[in-house]
């Protein structure tokens, strides 16, 4: 797993959901995906409304959602929240470029402005497979789903993330814990550079790190400003050391 950090583990096959209310456009997106990804696609579903799409998500796990923000005049913000709170990655395909900044703040993987050609979609899909340039990430908020509603909290409030089964716990500065519906890997993909993967199961906010020490037996640990102690893997230790020296 030497290349784990630089080239994260990504499934080679993927399940795609297209949410687009114009049938010809939906078919076009479908064709593009087919051309780009070929047999990497294990399933591809097209839905014209968010209601149908949500019903699908309940039943079936997906990896990537290509979402049009303004479906039937519905509030794009609400759609965005519901999309980014899912366990999958979201690429927005929309003509509403004015909403791009906000979409990025909520942690979408990419924003493809309409109209687009196949190559535009290709570079967006590339992001799914490759870690994007850190400075490009603008995620400022995370969204969690609580029952039927969504709650949003700023990323600045987060001390660290901890993997818990298929979920991720976000431990906040005020002691609260929020449950995120994303895997550690997918979360890491959308987090900006202020966060550091210290362990397979932990991501910490660099600004909250008080100290890190090398303990006997090859294990390391990190003490956060609030006193919490987190494990630090050896390989990450060097990485962190280099990062902190800068």
């Amino acid at each position, binding site marked *: 797993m030497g290349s784990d950090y630089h080239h994260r583990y990504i499934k080679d096959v993927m399940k795609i959901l297209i949410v687009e209310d114009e049938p010809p456009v939906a078919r076009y997106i479908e064709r593009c995906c087919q051309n780009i990804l070929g047999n990497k696609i294990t399933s591809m579903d097209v839905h014209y409304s968010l209601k149908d799409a949500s019903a699908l998500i309940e039943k079936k796990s997906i990896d990537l959602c290509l979402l049009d923000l303004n479906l*039937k005049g519905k509030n794009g913000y609400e759609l965005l929240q519901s999309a980014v709170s899912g366990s999958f990655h979201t690429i927005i395909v929309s003509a509403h470029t004015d909403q791009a900044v906000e979409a990025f703040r909520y942690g979408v993987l990419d924003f493809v402005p309409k109209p687009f050609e196949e190559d535009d979609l290709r570079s967006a899909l590339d992001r799914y497979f490759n870690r994007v340039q850190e400075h490009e990430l603008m995620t400022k908020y995370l969204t969690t789903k609580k029952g039927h509603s969504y709650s949003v909290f700023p990323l600045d409030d987060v001390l660290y993330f901890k993997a818990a089964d298929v979920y991720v716990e976000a431990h906040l500065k005020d002691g609260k814990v929020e449950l995120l519906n994303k895997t550690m890997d997918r979360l890491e993909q959308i987090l900006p550079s202020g966060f550091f993967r210290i362990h397979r199961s932990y991501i910490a906010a660099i600004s909250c790190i008080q100290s890190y020490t090398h303990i006997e037996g090859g294990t390391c640990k990190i003490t956060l400003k609030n006193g919490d102690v987190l494990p630090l893997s050896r390989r990450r230790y060097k990485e962190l050391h280099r990062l902190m020296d800068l």
Partner: protein
Amino acid sequence: MKKAIILFLFLVTAVHGQGENGRRSFHLDGKSILYLSTWRYSVGDDLNRKQPGFNDSAWATIHMDDPKRESRGIHWYRTRIHISGEQDHGKSLTLRIFGLPMAYDVFWDGQPIGQNGRVGKNKEEEVPGSIMQSYPLKQEMILPGEHVIAIRLSDQHGQSLFRRCWIALSYDSDWHSYISRILYRVFLWIGIYSTTMVLSLALYLGGRRHRPFLIFGAFCLVTVLYYSVMPLTMLCDVHISYFDFIFGSRYINFLLAQILINIFLVFNFDHPHKIYHIGIFIVLAIFFCTLNLPPYARTKWYSGIMIFYGFGLLLHAVKRKKPGSIIAFIGILFVTISIFLDFLRSILKIGIVTLPGEYLDIPFIFCITLSISRRIREQDRLHEAAKLRSHRLETELLKKTIQPHFMMNTLLSIISLIGEDPKKAVKLIKALADEFRMINRISSQKQIRLQEELRLCRIHLELMGYRMDAKYEFHVEGTCDDDTVPPMIFHTLVENGLTHAYEAKESGHFWFECARGRDHIQYRLRNDGSLLRPFSHQSKPQIEEGMGLKYVRARLEECYTSHWEMEYGFNQDQWEVTITIDT
């Protein structure tokens, strides 16, 4: 104000006191005009009555201003005056009689000194005279001591409606300086008001037909007419039969001036229920005309009430923060003081110089014109704002249709169709071009023909059909082809319908109906989209009005200012928007 009232009461009592004692003393060294207001009066004819020694102690005492002199026939007036002091031989003393109907002979110490017309026992015999007569007194007649003036008069031709008479004794030089001062004042007023009238009329015609200018101009006109009759009687030898006409017009002009200034206030400050206010003024005027009061008392009462009314209107305007209302308030205050002083002057019969009220008309006019221009400036501002709003609507229209996402989405639709159905792609491009060409043509118009609007709806439905893999049909019922409507209101409603009521690939129908009532036109637009149907059981649909509906409302308001209505809801499972416009 309190001081003014006290002063007023004091002066009134002073005048009355004077009346009782009969200030009948004329000092030859002095400089004054002696009004002979108290007289002995008796009906009947007897030439002995002219004699100074005649005993008139049994006669009734009357006051010149008292209108209750019911007499048809010959009657007599007698009064005594005491002359004192040294005679100035260079000056001549004259007795002046004004407004006494209809014909009379005047005797000084039993000697006839003149006559006006011819006194007669009946209508045929009587010859009415002039309104004003003057009788110079010879020097030997005005020796110091007591003198008796006797007047034998007849009014076979009836009394005048507007009794306004006075008898005065003065040196000619005093009298002429008094008259010239009056005329100076009157001509000043006539000059001021006629200039203002012409100016107001010019501002009305040359400007944006701002009604208060016209009303104020009319006010100035009646004021000029009001002031014009006075010099006429002073300067010309006017026959007494014109008395009623002259003073009647003066009286009516005074009433009209009161009404017009209040109408002006109603219009200038845009009071609601204008017609009711005007109605009240007229009803009040009629009411006062029918009152059993002497005409001058009526005008005084009416004027008082109208001034109060005017202040009420002004206070209301000030309260509503109408621009120019405070200035107008000050202006009306000036004219009120002026009228009040005028009133004092008339009851006191004192020289004009003692009261400076006449110049208050200048600040009055200044304040009123300033107030009008303030209002105009405000209206200009509103007009500019409305123009700006209209421009904004136009821009909004363009933005709404050429808004980037509509364009971008349509372009992507074209890209999508090129691959799978190039012919359809071409049709879509053509529909897009048609729609844009049309929008470009109508965008700057405030109203377009309904036909054009409906064509635009059809084109849009065709275009959206290509985009949504559906077919939308547009049905028009009723004929209103010649109607004009604000641009893109139905287009917007059709667009809304497509967005909210139809699923992808769901074909449908739109119905446009137009019905003409007696005083309104009603347009109905409904669709059979499936998405809204689940809400059709709600009696009052709870929808948040988006940009589209706001645009439609703004357009309707711009075109039909509150003479329109828009309703929406379900009609047998179909979403329906109804627009009613009053005609």
